[in-house]
């Protein structure tokens, strides 16, 4: 008798468990969409997920404000914003992509990583939206920047920023070391590093723990030494990444390491540590992109960084290199559109890339506008220098770790870290990158 009851009870428990586990989700789904007439769209609730990596308070506020404005104008649209730190975002995005559930709108740098997502069918082709009304939206962009987000002629995202990596420097510290003008050649740079060392100043901050900040050095040296022809040949497999010019890029980088040019503990340092060193006036130079001044400010106690002491100069020319002194390495930021994004998401991105929005992000100092009219917001003289540098470049190279297939980009970053840690010689490093190119570039 009692046994029967116990069986009955256990059945009830199991059933309850099974039911609660398999029950339908509590969120009511919207009524099936009928063909919405264009004139009077019924306010069907739409939720857009948006991942961005603009973490500095004043800059994040710009995105939030734009989203609030859009939601106020479109009451049926809810925009869920997720703000993540750069490295954390890359990790999160990887798992989101592998689960096949991309966010509707998310940070993208274009290039090899985006191409891989596009190839796997995880992104939405927004070319029709760009070309609608005789290409009204497309024509607002500068074509070079827009092209970074195109794969096989189709756009899967749009840019909102395009800048260049260059040398940020602390004028006060340069003056302390009696350096009159920023270096224009590698020889001058080496002389300045020596002078700064002699004055007891850390010449250069870098974050080799995060790898990509230090990889910029190698990429720029390779760009100067191998030129466009050398890189294009290697990347299209008619040439080789083991060529002497790529090895020489490693040698030049080791030259800096041997001089003690980088801050103490740079091998374990992150980009955050690097920005903190610059923002607090503890290092004289930093090779970084257009987002650097904002990050310096954000990583200083008073949020003002080193103020007017901050200057910018292009990466020095390297004597005997095949590349021109005006060639640039860089890239920008954009938003890619996930495969399941509703049309409202594309409309919202259109809103985010209006000239007025671009003016606002330029004023907050975290974008170099890519939309005509946006440059009106570019009041910062340093960012103007960046923009001019990018425009003047005869050959503009997207960051290697974004341009190349992801696995190979990761090998480039790992290898540069190994070169500066001297666990690999520049020859071995160039060979490792070449080996990776053999398997990854098909």
């Amino acid at each position, binding site marked *: 008798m009692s046994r029967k009851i116990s069986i009955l009870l256990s059945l009830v428990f199991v059933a309850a468990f099974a039911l609660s586990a398999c029950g339908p989700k509590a969120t009511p789904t919207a009524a099936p969409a009928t063909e919405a007439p264009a004139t009077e769209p019924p306010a069907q609730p739409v939720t857009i997920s948006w991942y961005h990596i603009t973490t500095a308070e004043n800059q994040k506020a710009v995105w939030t404000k734009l989203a609030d404005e859009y939601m106020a104008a479109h009451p049926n649209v809810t925009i869920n914003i997720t703000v993540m730190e750069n490295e954390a975002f890359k990790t999160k995005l*990887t798992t989101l992509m592998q689960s096949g559930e991309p966010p509707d709108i998310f940070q993208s740098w274009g290039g090899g990583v985006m191409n891989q997502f596009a190839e796997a069918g995880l992104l939405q082709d927004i070319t029709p939206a760009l070309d609608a009304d005789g290409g009204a939206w497309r024509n607002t962009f500068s074509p070079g920047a827009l092209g970074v987000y195109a794969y096989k002629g189709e756009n899967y995202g749009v840019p909102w920023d395009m800048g260049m990596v260059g040398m940020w420097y602390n004028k006060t510290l340069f003056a302390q070391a009696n350096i009159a003008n920023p270096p224009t050649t590698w020889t001058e740079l080496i002389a300045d590093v020596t002078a700064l060392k002699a004055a007891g100043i850390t010449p250069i901050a870098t974050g080799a723990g995060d790898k990509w900040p230090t990889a910029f050095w190698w990429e720029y040296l390779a760009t100067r030494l191998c030129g466009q022809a050398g890189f294009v040949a290697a990347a299209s497999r008619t040439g080789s990444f083991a060529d002497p010019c790529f090895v020489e890029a490693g040698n030049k980088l080791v030259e800096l390491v041997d001089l003690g040019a980088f801050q103490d503990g740079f091998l374990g340092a992150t980009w955050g*540590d690097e920005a903190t060193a610059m923002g607090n006036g503890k290092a004289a130079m930093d090779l970084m992109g257009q987002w650097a001044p904002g990050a310096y400010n954000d990583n200083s106690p008073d949020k003002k960084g080193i103020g007017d002491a901050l200057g910018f100069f292009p990466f020095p020319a390297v004597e005997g290199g095949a590349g021109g002194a005006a060639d640039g390495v860089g890239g920008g930021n954009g938003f890619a559109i996930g495969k399941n994004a509703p049309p409202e998401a594309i409309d919202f991105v259109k809103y985010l890339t209006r000239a007025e929005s671009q003016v606002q992000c330029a004023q907050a100092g975290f974008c170099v506008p890519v939309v005509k009219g946006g440059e009106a917001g570019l009041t910062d003289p340093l960012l103007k220098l960046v923009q001019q540098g990018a425009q003047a470049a005869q050959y503009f190279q997207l960051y290697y770790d974004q341009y190349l297939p992801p696995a190979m980009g990761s090998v480039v970053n790992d290898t540069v870290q190994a070169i500066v840690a001297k666990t690999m010689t520049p020859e071995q490093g160039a060979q490792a990158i070449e080996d990776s190119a053999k398997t990854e570039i098909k």
Partner: protein
Amino acid sequence: MRKVVKSGRNSHSPRKVQDNLTVFLFLLPAFVLFLVFLVYPIVRSIYFSTFDWNGLGPAVDFIGLDNFKRILTDKIFMKAVGNCLLIVVLSLTLQLPLSLTLAIMVGRDLPGKAFFRTIFFMPYVLSEVITAIIWLGLFNPDPERGFINALLILIPGVKAVPFLGDTHIVLACIFVVLTWKFFGLHMLLYMAGLQNIPREIEEAALIDGANRWKLIRYITIPLLSSTIQTTIWLSVLGSLTQFPLVWIMTKGGPVNASEVMATYMYRYGFVRFWLGYGSAVAVVMLLICLVFSIAYLRLVRQPDYLGGM
């Protein structure tokens, strides 16, 4: 109860069937969870480990055992295995003896033992992510930001040390954090074991003329042996599969100096987008842990004198 069950001599008796049904029903929820969240992922990993697959879209490029061949000839993986083994050895020779010593010291008679127990156990309660971030701050190479270096430079002639940026000492730093984090757990297990040792045995030994050291050597440690075996097992498996502390503090760097198997798996699986290869690494890790567990449980575990842990 026991008698009732035994009386059903025939296994096909209705009572027996009912018993089995009850057992089955009670096991079912746990078994379903076990299948879905443990067995299924393992089977999938084994399947994916035979593909060259970037994790996006279906896996089609079957390559057999090539991933495994590559793992076993990869110098960085061997370095990761070596680092894991080093952490295992250090854990067994430093961390566990430290925990045992502390447990014996604060285990019984010390006034305020509850206080010490709480203090020592506190690091274990923190999540590993928080632990890693706290230590990241302590280890900062800049004396104005890193507490340890701030203390170090007070000593005349001592310069700031880039703890996590130096390939030679980074693993030692990681081990310090692992010890700080986990010694409390082992100490607590030992203390629980100590409570189970009957007073009479110790008293008898004392009457027989045993000194404090002999008491520990011949009474306490042998009677704790089952607990010690459990902690060794936990410690070894924990060391072999350690991930969050290492990943957050160093990402396995600089240049793989603190690479462990789990960070290696993550780097290749999720950073380089070689999901097939990453799965193969996971399978290798599983095999290593499985072989250790089975061998350890078969060969080492002695009969339990006190019915402890």
